[in-house]
């Protein structure tokens, strides 16, 4: 799930407004977008990328191995299963609000085809300086820069903020893995942690988690075995219990999946848990909070 410039990307839903906007951004960044899929526009070109009638045809003609979906919820399952049947090995599902039973069907198909799903509801994957796939601001220099910290995030907006804080502190990123905000993900925090553990350029890892589910607790079990330092920020400490706060995954019921349980599990595994996003960078660089923060009131 760490993408390289050699990854050949097929964009499903390339001709839509968002598909167009983000395909242009991906191409400009250096991502090899080799094909788009739209049955009505097959044979033509869009963003100077050839359009095919089906993912199967696109795979046959271009050798694309990664697909990214700009597809609405109602047709996401069909598009995903077709892509898996076409032999796509990495499927990045950006779509939010896919019915749960469709998501389960997608995971069942992925198990049969040996496909790695990233998402649903992911903001995508960034390998700074090489390529990005999805809807992350890889091209904003204040946010991303090449380096050695691997970042795992359920949220796109919060992941962006954390990368911004790292870059500000002089810490570039080896890879950003957006795992997604859906309650049922193809790639979990633990999966992403293992991938970054085995990624030579990655020297430290940041987990950006959220209340809800038990992914951070599971990842803590893995973090315990790692030599690379791991830091984390968990959003939702101030969220009222029992309320769904947007991401379907972020719901607190009882103690399970709550902030305290996650923090306890991570700290017991030797992970540094930061109180604010800015503190993550300080924790990793071994520096105290910048004087600027403290001086903010008197400047």
């Amino acid at each position: 799930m760490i993408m390289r410039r050699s990854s050949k990307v097929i964009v499903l839903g390339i001709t839509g407004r968002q598909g167009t906007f983000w395909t242009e951004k991906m191409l400009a960044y250096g991502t090899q977008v080799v094909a788009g899929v739209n049955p009505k526009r097959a044979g033509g070109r869009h963003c100077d990328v050839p359009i095919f009638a089906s993912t199967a045809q696109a795979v046959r003609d271009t050798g694309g191995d990664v697909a990214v979906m700009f597809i609405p919820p109602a047709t996401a399952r069909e598009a995903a299963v077709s892509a898996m049947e076409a032999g796509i090995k990495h499927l990045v599902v950006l779509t939010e609000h896919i019915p749960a039973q469709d998501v389960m069907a997608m995971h069942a198909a992925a198990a049969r085809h040996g496909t790695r799903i990233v998402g649903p509801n992911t903001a995508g994957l960034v390998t700074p300086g090489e390529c990005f796939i999805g809807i992350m601001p890889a091209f904003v220099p204040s946010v991303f820069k090449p380096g050695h910290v691997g970042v795992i995030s359920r949220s796109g907006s919060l992941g962006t903020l954390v990368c911004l804080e790292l870059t500000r502190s002089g810490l570039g990123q080896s890879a950003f893995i957006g795992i997604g905000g859906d309650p049922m993900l193809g790639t979990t925090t633990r999966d992403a942690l293992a991938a970054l553990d085995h990624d030579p350029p990655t020297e430290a890892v940041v987990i950006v988690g959220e209340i809800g589910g038990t992914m951070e607790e599971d990842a803590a079990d893995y973090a315990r075995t790692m030599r690379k330092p791991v830091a984390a920020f968990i959003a939702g400490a101030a969220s009222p219990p029992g309320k769904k706060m947007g991401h379907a995954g972020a719901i607190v019921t009882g103690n399970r999946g709550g902030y305290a349980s996650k923090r306890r599990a991570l700290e017991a595994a030797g992970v540094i848990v930061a109180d604010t996003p800015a503190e993550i960078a300080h924790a990793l660089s071994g520096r105290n909070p910048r004087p600027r923060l403290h001086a903010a009131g008197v400047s």
Partner: protein
Amino acid sequence: MNFDEHAAKSLVLAPAGIPVPRGQICRTAKEAAQAVGAIGPAAIKAQVAAGKRGKAGGIKPADTPEEAERVAAAILGMSIGEYKVERVLVEEQANIAHEFYAAVLTDTEARKPLVLFSTQGGMDIEKVAAANPNAIRRQHVDLDVEPGAVDFVSMLAGLQLGDAQASVADILSRLYAAYRRRDAELLEINPLAQLADRRVVALDCKFVLDDAAAYRQEDIVRFGAPAPMTALEQRGAENGLKFIQVDGNVGVLANGAGLTMTTMDVIRHFGGRPANFLEIGGEAYTKSAAALDLVLSNPGVKSLIINFCGAFARTDVMAEGVVKAWQELKPAIPVFFSIHGTGEDEAIALVRARLGIEPYDLMEDAIQAAVRAAQ
């Protein structure tokens, strides 16, 4: 979305061929009396999408029309959980021999549907699971190989269900089909009762619809019981915005659930109290004007933090919405900005030029300033 018992039975169970008792929905005590006159001794059951109705006094027997009128009058108008009781179900009394438990639910950890059955029905299934885990049979379903994948008969093997075995297996199979057909998150029968006359019927039912699938369940959605909302939360929902009022004084306008929760956390970290959760993530990022209106309408808000970190959500589009709404709303409270990510140059320039406000470079500085201004 939750559904009350009657909606669950009549819209989901009965059409799937699962037997349910005869019953009638009544809105007044008089109607309840007439219903008992027609069907005989009955249970009067409050229809609210909340648990523990029995414990709250919302389910009572009535043998005669007079008793039904008295009992229904007491139940109608009472509050259970967050709901007010406006309707009762008058249902024929059941002569129960055994109580079972049956459910199909979405197991998010296994990422598969899970079928549950227990011979110990009628009580809280979590308590059964804790006291006697072996009393519960569990069967996951692989959605890639259904239908016909689940052998409900072998799932029940060894439970000594006697003459109920065939009916129970049939009902489980129908329950699973109904779970699939109706995009349930949870479809639960507790108790599933074998009556003295040996019939097996669903005496209660809980149905939770997957909100993401509401678009393809349009024929039943309008019978659901949405969670109670404040007037402002309602206004948010009508605009497609997830807005949750919290008891604080620092208003929050941020994009994405993760960033919004974090903004609330950092407000708390600096000793302040957030006033709301509000998500304008996903496609909703284009609705920043309506979002600003909501946050400013929340009484008690003393300052506002506008925190944009654009990935998919373009900060230039969000800033444009805010600037547009600003002319109309003319906020009377101090507002603090932090803007980063996709479209940041245009967004910062716009806020600077049109509102004369300088966005903070550090999010935490902006939040700290908003907390201080609210004190």
